[in-house]
């Protein structure tokens, strides 16, 4: 396997050589990757699951753990970070399926507990935006978050999600149209409605 280097000193071949064997050489390299991507991974999962902080951290944990365990399968064809975010997006989908089943079994929609961490901005406005995002389908929210809020290209999102470019574009178009309907007052020159 050709050594895969993500440009941040995380070499898949070296990680693979130490992972699960002695555990001695690996942690420094793995820690570097975690330190580089931890905050973004949690923030991205948070946006994709609709603002549940505890779930976002669990998802990020699981994604890092899966990446660590599956490193021998990484072929170096994509950037290591792209490969990792694909795992993360899959973990989000797994979580969403699990939550959907849990809600169906419970017979009602459970309210996620609010994130206890302090945030800035108008809480009412944040809540409105969160509710508008929750009204998008999972695919629309995924495309909107990944492209418009996280800065991935359509092609990257297609690779991350396993969907066609055209599907991503369609989701983006519908998501933006829906959000403009729901949050029209947030556009420039308009006063937000309470």
């Amino acid at each position, binding site marked *: 396997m050709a050594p895969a280097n993500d440009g941040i000193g995380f070499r898949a071949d070296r990680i693979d050589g130490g*992972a*699960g*064997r002695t*555990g001695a050489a690996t*942690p420094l390299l*793995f*820690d570097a990757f*975690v*330190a580089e991507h*931890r*905050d973004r991974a*949690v*923030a991205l999962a*948070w*946006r994709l699951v609709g*603002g549940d*902080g505890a779930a*976002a*951290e669990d998802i*990020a*944990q699981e994604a*890092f*753990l899966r990446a*660590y*365990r599956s490193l021998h399968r990484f072929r170096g064809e994509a950037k290591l970070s792209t490969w990792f975010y694909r795992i993360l997006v899959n973990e989000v989908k797994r979580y969403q399926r699990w939550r959907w089943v849990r809600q169906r079994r419970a017979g009602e929609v459970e309210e996620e507990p609010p*994130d206890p*961490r*302090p*945030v800035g*901005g108008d809480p009412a*406005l*944040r809540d409105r*935006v*969160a509710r508008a*995002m929750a009204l998008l389908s999972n695919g629309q929210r995924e495309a909107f978050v990944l*492209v*418009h*809020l996280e800065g991935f290209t*359509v092609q990257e999102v297609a690779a991350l999600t396993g969907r066609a470019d055209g599907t991503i*574009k369609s989701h*983006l*178009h519908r998501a*933006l*149209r829906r*959000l*403009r309907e729901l*949050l029209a007052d*947030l*556009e*420039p020159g308009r006063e937000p409605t309470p």
Partner: protein
Amino acid sequence: MTHDRRDPMKLAPDEQALVRRIGDLYAAPPLSGPHRARFDARLAERVGARAPRTRALVGISFAAVAAASFGLWMVVPRGGTPGVDTPSALPAPLAMAAQDDDAILAMMEPIASADEALPEDYRAIADLVIDE
């Protein structure tokens, strides 16, 4: 019905402003230092806990394969070169199996020994288990 065929990546200025606003308002609270430390410690613990368990599973799997191979070796009568036993020397079901094996082997290219007919993985395991 009209369909907007614009590139969804090319946003009008008012759309860009709306997206920016949504991005500001729909963002996770930043992780604090202690929060990061807890996250890293939990992950390190899970990564560390995983390695011995994986090794144990691999060990158990290998032991199971080895035991199955040994059991097979015990069932097949010895006393001659493998593959040379005559069908009549075996119990009826095994004799039929041996005939089937012979028929299959006959269709294959000539081989130097019966061992070569075995898959490579099997031979590797057999070499470890069967001490000739």
